[in-house]
């Protein structure tokens, strides 16, 4: 029964339509990229892009390449580091702002004024300040996720149903109990959402920071996927640019997906029946 629904879902009309559209996209891309050799004229924009078949060949060649996987590893490490720091600082900060009015009044306006400055604008200042490039990338990465996480945690904690707090109080809960058993779990869904969004931004920032700063100074394989793309561009191997893009897409997707799954485990009461 369960298998039957899975198979029927796999071959449902919606799935087939999606596959069809993606296949069509790839065919157009291939035709566009090869338009010069196939049709004798170069299609605008697409004519300058490497065709998907070349990308696949290039990718297959890279699969055994240690440097390519090293790039994955480096990017993951940076994303993970910056993201973890943003969670460790952002969640308590957001919660504290939600429960303490004075602190909120002092800090929130400053926070709001700093927030419109895009994280990447911090790159040069960060490089000047931090002793190593690795730390400066980590800082910018941290900033990217930080704002989103704080805003979500704050919003979540402030929108808690007051009756939950009153109910807990009437049952004799202490302030700490209320924080731990009401505020924290009630904010969890917002923390999960904020983290998922923050994770997406983290990947954006890591990629950009790797490109701008030239991949942690030493360059080469330790540069991460962003630098992999950039050096492919500088080196003129355009297929590898696309391989890099797809790799980052996959990496970003899986990071968010893992986060969503973890979030689901942490908030079982949100599961719909």
């Amino acid at each position, binding site marked *: 029964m369960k298998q039957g629904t899975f198979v029927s879902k796999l071959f449902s009309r919606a799935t087939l339509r999606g596959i069809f559209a993606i296949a069509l996209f790839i065919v157009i891309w291939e035709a566009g990229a090869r338009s010069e050799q196939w049709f004798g004229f170069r299609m605008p924009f697409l004519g300058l892009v490497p065709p998907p078949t070349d990308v696949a060949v290039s990718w297959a060649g890279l699969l055994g390449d240690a440097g390519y996987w090293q790039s994955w590893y480096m990017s993951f490490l940076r994303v993970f580091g910056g993201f973890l720091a943003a969670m460790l600082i952002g969640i308590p900060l957001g919660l504290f702002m939600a429960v303490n009015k004075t602190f909120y009044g002092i*800090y929130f306006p400053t926070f709001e004024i700093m927030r*419109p400055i895009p994280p990447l604008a911090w790159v040069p200042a960060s490089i000047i300040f931090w002793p190593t490039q690795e730390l400066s990338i980590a800082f910018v990465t941290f900033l990217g996720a930080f704002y989103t996480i704080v805003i979500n945690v704050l919003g979540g904690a402030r929108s808690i149903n007051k009756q939950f707090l009153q109910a807990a109080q009437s049952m004799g809960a202490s302030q700490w109990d209320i924080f731990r058993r009401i505020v924290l779990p009630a904010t969890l869904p917002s923390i999960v959402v904020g983290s998922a969004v923050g994770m997406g931004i983290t990947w954006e920032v890591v990629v950009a920071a790797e490109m701008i700063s030239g991949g942690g100074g030493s360059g080469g394989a330790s540069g991460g996927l962003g630098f992999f793309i950039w050096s492919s561009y500088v080196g003129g191997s355009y297929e590898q640019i696309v391989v890099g893009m797809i790799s980052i897409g996959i990496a970003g997707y899986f990071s968010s997906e893992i986060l969503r799954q973890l979030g689901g485990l942490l908030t079982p009461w949100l599961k719909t029946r």
Partner: protein
Amino acid sequence: MSIVLDKPDTAGGERGPELSSLGLTMYRFSAWLKSPRPYLMLIGFAIVLGFWYLAVEVLQLPRFESMPGLTEVFREWFSKDPIYGLSIYTPEYYTHIGISLRRIAYAFLLATVLGVPLGLFLGWSKTFREFVFPLFEVLRPIPILAWVPLAIIMFSGSESPVIFLTFLASFFATTLNTMLGVESIDESYSRAASCLGASRWQVFKHVVIPGAMPYIFTGLQISIGVAWFSLVAGEMVSGQFGLGYLINTSYMMIEYPKIIIGMITLGIVGFATSAMVRAAGDYMMQWRVRELALVD
């Protein structure tokens, strides 16, 4: 209709003199001044600026000493004769702002013009969604910045790649939120409309578009934010002029105060543009503004 009915229900109808928006703003402002908020805010600013000043220029803490200091930055920014050639009195400053703004305007408008209708159709037509949305979802996880080299290859010159990147970021945000907006509309609205004799197209015009409006404007808020995000990155990597370019070149030329001026300016301009989007949203959704005003 032969019956003379009861007198108008004025109790429900009249809600006192209409508050003008200016009057409301003035009232809120004075209430704000009476609350502790503005003073706490000033304390917050004082702490940050004071820390900056002390750490860099007075105490010269390790690592901080190499940063541009508070007075140094502001002296440069408001100087008629700036040391590094950039202040509110130099035309160069406004060239950078103007060029960044122009890029944002092109990208944001294009993304809105294409993204909103696409999002509306994605939400409205299930068939269309089933075809197009998977492709959308496959492309979306690729960070916008990863498109930089490809954008440079595809578009000639230095201007269009940057605009393309900015557009792409805005476009995804706008389309996705518009689609979510359509999906969020309570089914009973479209049912009510079809009950009242509206055709499918009329339902689209009178229910789907206005119903999705709050989400669309949330999307546009996000869109303008990510537009600045991508623009700065694009300008730092490639491109001529613009605030991102200013920040990056100032770093390379070791003109550090200009970096901070660029950052602060970005913050101000970014905030102003998103305030403009919000104001446009309020203007177009009077019904929502009035509803929310009652909740306050």
